[in-house]
């Protein structure tokens, strides 16, 4: 496996300089690996991990289950692609089970998100039904625990 991809999957937060040291590569090589992963569309980009349920983040998030009509030739893809282009949509997945698409939406207020659902999403041709769930609180975000006291290492400073 690409050594840089391996480090990215591990989910650390190393700079490219640090990645170079850990993987035993030069920084230029790390950047070349990153560039290649980008071209292969494995590595899509960097993003901060934020707790958007905080008041000061002023963001409302919802998960929407969407049932759609698959089309001959394209299946679910054309509609999923069209939905994904809305900037409100953070992530969009095709699911097995009771509905077809699961969409994560973020907006500045409840009204804005509700407006997106009623005006944009549900009016699209091919969308049969939507079921919207607003998120109330985060406990874990992108691998980070929220609202737990900072962990202090209980390790002795020197041990045999």
């Amino acid at each position, binding site marked *: 496996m690409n050594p840089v991809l391996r480090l990215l999957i591990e989910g650390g937060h190393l700079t490219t300089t640090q990645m170079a040291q*850990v993987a035993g590569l030069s920084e230029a090589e790390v950047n070349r690996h990153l560039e290649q992963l980008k071209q292969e569309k494995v590595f899509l980009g960097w993003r901060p991990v934020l707790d958007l349920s905080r008041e000061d983040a002023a963001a409302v998030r919802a998960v929407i289950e969407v049932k759609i009509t698959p089309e001959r030739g394209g299946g679910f893809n054309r509609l999923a692609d069209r939905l994904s282009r809305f900037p409100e949509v953070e992530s969009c997945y095709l699911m097995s089970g009771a509905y077809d698409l699961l969409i994560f939406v973020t907006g500045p207020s409840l009204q804005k998100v509700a407006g997106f659902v009623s005006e944009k999403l549900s009016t699209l041709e091919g969308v049969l039904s939507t079921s919207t769930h607003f998120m109330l609180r985060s406990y874990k975000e992108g691998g980070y625990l929220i609202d737990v006291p900072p962990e202090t290492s209980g390790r002795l400073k020197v041990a*045999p």
Partner: protein
Amino acid sequence: MKRYIARHVVDLPKSGIRDFFEIVAKMEDVISLGIGEPDFDTPWHIREAAIYALEKGKTHYTSNLGLLELRRAISRYVEQHYAVAYRPEDEIIVTVGVSEAIDLALRALLNPGDAVLYHEPCYVSYHPSVTLAHGVALPVATRAEDGFALNAEDLARAWRPGCKILMMNLPCNPTGGTCDRARLEKIARFAVEKDLIVLSDEIYSELVYDQAHTSIAVFPGMRERTIFLHGFSKAFAMTGFRIGYACGPAELVEAMMKVHQYSMLCAPILSQEAAIEALLRGEDAMKAMREQYHRRRDLVVRRLNAAGLACHRPGGAFYAFPNVGATGLSERDFAYGLLAAEKVAVVPGTAFGPGGAGFVRASYATGYESLIEACDRIDRYVQGLAKR
């Protein structure tokens, strides 16, 4: 009060790591490469199993040998990974860490004056454990040019009549030294020839990076003279659970059990429950940790050598053991100087026996970022010394 204290305890030297610990403990913002335990917390599913056991009221004594379910799991694990089969009913005993298992074995086997061969530099408790069991400790030096592997020829030179036990720790704390099959086979032949019991402390055996680990118990004539010692502290990051085990011939395990039943009774039940979970479902987490140690080893060894500190590539455990001789400083002056100048703690090699003179132990059981920062500081310190 000293007159009340047993003579062999009075004469026991204080652990060489202790003074150093006192100094480091008082300092702020130290990056410590002086810690002989994993930086990872115990994987959550193992901790959760311990919580569940507590909720279910698992708060009682267990059999002296340990929970049969755990011994069965150990038997399967050891057979699968080390290719030696032990009966759960009478050939396995669960102990409070490998430390207790070593103590039990030595106390069960040694008559006063019996000698114990062991390689050195070695874990801090080896020599004192032998002394406390009224044995005579016979260290055998291992060398950096061999990657701190143990050689049968060196053992043969150190051997003398009255030697009863050979104690080994491969991979080794503090050197990270391992032994290839060929060397081990020679050691096995030596043990058979001299009729030695081998205490094989294989606590780091999951953490090997270059070649598969081989237990000395697999060689002809060895199963019946080997006490295989292992535990959960390193591979499953469970140091604080204090849980280990010994496998060996039933009669020897029975003798160890006698000492154990009168001193410890049994290992803590919650730790035993957690250990079952570790063996049944802990392998993925263990492999993920090993992969990180592997990369950290490569990083640290490369950086130490680049800084001018000659460092062999340790085959296992999570320690680099560089020679600081090129700086012109003793291991002690180097460690204290590095601590004062750059706030990086490494342990002077002599804490692990006189054979550690000229070396320091740098544990890489620390996250990448701290490790890189520590290497930068060591590099700066060494370059600074060169300019003086």
